[in-house]
């Protein structure tokens, strides 16, 4: 069962020209990760996105960064992005406040395909900030809940203080036929949850392998081990979708910064059916 992902053309006549976006709020999720909510300029009327797509956020005078959209695709009027503060753009953006204006172009890239999951169980595996581009997928799954079987989220973070969307995770876990299992790599004795890598969590779920579709996003090494674990449990490569990441610049497949073997992550990805990229996972210098 291999379904292509939806590769969507960049919107607009001028895909490299940013729209203006006004910051509605900045919420710190952890010490180094924040969620920024944006109101789009009227010039972006009709903007829509699909789960798994990303925008280029432009801090004027500093630069651009490719950031996945973390909000509900059904409410495109307010866009949220959850951002790990690591470089000049994301650090500068972190200092912005309500009312400040930034540039935004997008949405770009492929999306998590929902059709293959219809009538099947869904297993989502997220590592660290990799939960952010998966959040819109959950909103979409929950919106048409009856179309899907069980929904399982296995989520790993560095420590309890690094967990994203805690309140929302609890809300998801309370839904019928939804399992949310969280683990952290390290903790002190105040944490009563699981400690260890995210792949350990497979021990605590029962997968109906032939009837499961898996969506995976996180650091590449984590994805490599997760894919191996899924295979070990009988989930074939054709049932798995992963989101890849490289340094993106133009976002339209022109500059070549994000080349990954024969693909450009910005244009052909970031979401790929696993069989398309399995042979490239963690190949050196790609």
């Amino acid at each position: 069962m291999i379904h292509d992902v939806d590769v969507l053309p960049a919107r607009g006549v001028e895909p490299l020209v940013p729209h203006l976006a006004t910051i509605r709020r900045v919420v710190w999720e952890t010490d180094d990760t924040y969620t920024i909510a944006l109101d789009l300029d009227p010039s972006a009327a009709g903007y829509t996105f699909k789960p798994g797509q990303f925008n280029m956020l432009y801090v004027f005078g500093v630069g651009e960064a490719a950031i996945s959209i973390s909000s509900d695709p059904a409410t495109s009027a307010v866009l949220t992005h959850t951002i790990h503060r690591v470089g000049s753009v994301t650090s500068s953006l972190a200092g912005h406040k309500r009312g400040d204006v930034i540039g935004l172009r997008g949405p770009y890239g492929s999306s998590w395909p929902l059709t293959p999951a219809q009538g099947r169980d869904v297993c989502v595996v997220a590592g660290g900030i990799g939960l952010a581009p998966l959040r819109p997928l959950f909103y979409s799954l929950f919106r048409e809940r009856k179309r899907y079987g069980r929904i399982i989220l296995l989520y790993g973070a560095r420590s309890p203080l690094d967990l994203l969307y805690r309140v929302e995770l609890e809300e998801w876990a309370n839904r019928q036929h939804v399992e949310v299992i969280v683990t952290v790599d390290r903790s002190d004795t105040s944490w009563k949850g699981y400690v260890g890598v995210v792949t350990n969590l497979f021990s605590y779920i029962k997968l109906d392998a032939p009837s499961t579709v898996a969506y995976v996003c996180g650091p590449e090494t984590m994805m490599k081990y997760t894919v191996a674990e899924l295979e070990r449990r009988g989930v074939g490569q054709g049932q798995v979708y992963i989101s890849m990441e490289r340094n993106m610049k133009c976002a339209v497949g022109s500059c070549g910064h994000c080349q990954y073997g024969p693909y450009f992550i910005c244009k052909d990805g970031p979401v790929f059916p696993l069989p398309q990229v399995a042979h490239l996972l963690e190949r050196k210098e790609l």
Partner: protein
Amino acid sequence: MQTEDLTTLLRQHPFLADLSTEHMDILVGCASNVKFNDNQYLIREGEIADKLYLIRTGRVALEIDSSERGSIRIQTIGPGQVLGWSWLISPYRWHFSGCAVTDVLALALDGKCLRTKCDNDHDFGYEMLQRLTQVMERRLEATRMQLMDLYGSAEGAGR
């Protein structure tokens, strides 16, 4: 508890999946059904390692004591998993402490009893060793991944 009840419980644990009746009959003599309360220690670093625990329900956190950082939780062991193989390796001392973080039901296999039976019946011993080394291999793989501190790096930053 009746031996046959214990055998049923042992059979339900993934570590002993498909174990032959002959080997199960050998093993059951070393087994007991145990319960621990939340916050109770199953094993303590430095003490004699005399048990192999097969966790049925609940969670056990493995801890290392550090003078600088206090007790650090490095891993949790949950339902269907195995705790402790130091009973197999001289000098038979625990290298970690294991604290129940919920109420825990487990099957305890006596280490000395198991060692003796493994020595007396090498087929049984090889079977046990094969199963334990699989657990060790998976645990080692997970530890390596944990050491990489994947989420602490810039990798995945721009998601």
